[in-house]
């Protein structure tokens, strides 16, 4: 039994699922479900289809380089069955999967961090400027908890005199 990867979306194909298409040049395409198979028949490039792993890796949305991927490399040499090795491998698989998922979610979180900071900055600015849409300015002036702390700016006396002269 071997768990294959879908050619289109790179998800695992478990036994009993999917279709295997053999082209005349002896290249085998495995598909996990008919969605991927139909997209293939439409000759879509998986690197351009947004929901596939190929697109996500290509555009940096998902983690590409990591040491946890080394464990999943294909080995064509069958190993002699040893109960201890099998047991340890099963435990290791679970642990490696957990580590990999943690690392990939960190990668995504880091990627989204700059956007989050930007959104918070914009929100703060909007709160400052457009609060009059929510509460009347009179009520705002009386209730100090709804305002951001005021910053005092010192204006020199000579400048105001110049402005008065210009207005006249």
């Amino acid at each position, binding site marked *: 039994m071997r768990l294959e990867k879908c050619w289109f979306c790179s998800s695992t194909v478990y036994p009993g699922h999917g279709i*295997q298409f*053999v082209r005349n040049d002896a290249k*085998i395409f495995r598909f996990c479900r008919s969605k991927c198979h139909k997209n*293939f028949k439409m000759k879509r490039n998986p690197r351009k289809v947004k929901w596939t792993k190929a697109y996500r890796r290509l555009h940096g949305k998902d983690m590409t380089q990591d040491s946890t991927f080394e464990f999943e490399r294909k080995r064509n040499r069958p190993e002699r069955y040893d109960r201890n090795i099998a047991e340890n491998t099963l435990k290791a698989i679970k642990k490696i999967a957990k580590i990999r998922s943690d690392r990939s979610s960190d990668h995504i979180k880091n990627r989204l961090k700059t956007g989050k900071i930007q959104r918070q900055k914009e929100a703060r600015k909007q709160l400052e400027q457009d609060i009059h849409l929510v509460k009347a300015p009179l009520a705002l002036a009386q209730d100090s908890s709804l305002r951001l702390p005021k910053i005092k700016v010192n204006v020199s006396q000579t400048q105001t005199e110049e402005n008065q002269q210009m207005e006249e």
Partner: protein
Amino acid sequence: MAASFASKCSRVGRSLLGGPGNNLSGLQSASNEVVGNNVWSQQQRTFIQMRTVLKVVDNSGAKKVMCIQALKGKKGARLGDTIVASVKEAMPNGKVKKGKVVYGVVVRAAMQRGRCDGSEVKFDDNAVVLVDKQGQPIGTRVFGPVPHELRKKKHVKILTLAKHIA
């Protein structure tokens, strides 16, 4: 119409067979029609039955062969079955000539066939290897991939001649 639909639903690595490859004018009702007006509707790949033209992938001399009878199966032959066929097109100097009635083993079928592990395989075209009555191949070489369903059907000789086993 059959040809235009075949070209619309073409896939990567399309087969050399043109319109007559897909049997839409079948005599039996087992042949399935192309569904609907959808541009991306798939062709229903069906059995190999009377009048199906298959490609010959050995060096026996024949090029195209038309199925006369599927030896097993009421609806038609599938991957790995033997058929009786008539040679429609042949190389000028070969072991078989045009018009001869031969037996053949289907080595590639566009219709998917279920494997014992639950998955399904399908190939790009319909192809056949000519054999004699005992099941020994007439030619000495086989081109293209062949499925390992042939091992169960005891066509071991064809498997040994093949370059690639799917």
